[in-house]
């Protein structure tokens, strides 16, 4: 293909064809390119046509994440329940303990003078 400066070159069909073939040459002669393309095609088919996206890597972790979240919820719920029961029990015991020492008239008086400071304080407060 001899092209001289200043002279328009008349292109023949063969030359145009050759140029096109050079330009549109296959991207890779090695097999690895085609192996990769095949893998991508089959992966696309396996995924049901969804194009792989960056968040696609999380798909495999969705079930694990959900299971972990459920487990964490159950454990925290159980812990809250136990905490609440403990608080209720403490409150109940506190009330019962308080009720047992409130110097309501009869029994305390009937018991006679107490030696405890607490009873003395209560008696004082109640105008005994």
């Amino acid at each position: 293909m001899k092209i001289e400066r200043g002279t328009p070159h008349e292109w023949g069909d063969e030359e145009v064809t050759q140029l096109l073939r050079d330009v549109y040459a296959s991207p890779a002669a090695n097999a690895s390119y085609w192996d990769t393309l095949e893998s991508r095609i089959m992966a696309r088919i396996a995924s049901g046509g969804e194009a792989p996206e960056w968040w696609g890597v999380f798909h495999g972790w969705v079930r694990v994440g959900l299971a972990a979240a459920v487990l964490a919820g159950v454990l925290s719920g159980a812990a809250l329940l136990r905490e609440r029961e403990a608080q209720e029990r403490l409150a109940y015991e506190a009330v019962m303990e308080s009720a047992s020492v409130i110097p309501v008239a009869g029994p305390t008086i009937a018991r006679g003078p107490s030696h405890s400071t607490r009873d003395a304080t209560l008696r004082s407060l109640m105008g005994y």
Partner: protein
Amino acid sequence: MTLALTFDFPSAVLSPPEPTAREREHELVVSAQRGDTESFAALVRLHQRRAYAVARAIVLTHEDAEDAVQEGFLHAFRALDRFLPDQAFGAWLNRIVANAALDITRRKKVRDADALTDTIASPFRDPAESAELRRRLTVALSTLNERQRAVIVLHDVEGFKHAEIGRLLGIPEGTARSDLHHARARLRQALSAVRSQL
């Protein structure tokens, strides 16, 4: 003598003939239609190069060609149960790939010759002439409509016949001939102004 001859060639007489490529492909298609993805993968291996060439003739970039090939194979896989195994799988697939490539081209409608220059690369002996030829060819290709460009590449680069191109692109054979003629004329005209020295 007769006995000896008979005894000498039993394997040639009794062994089944090797399946032809067409028969092998037929088996793969039937197997793939039954849900065997390995068979479909074998079909991909057999046809992906040609499918890429078809797509590349229609779209403007290598990346778009790859997308079209993937789209085409995906469509083919989904439509596999409607394919008649007695037909030529390659021709059926290439039509699907061509349609996928045409869809991509219509969506993108890239007409920017500068963008094309980066995507079409070719090794020539003289870098200066190479660059000028590439630029001219790129500009010329971008002035062709998508059908003309596909026709000339499919014919001149991939060696498809006019009738095959017509079937691929869904146009009459005569239209394919006409498109080829006009495309060549336009490329010749665009390249004829290139001046260089060797």
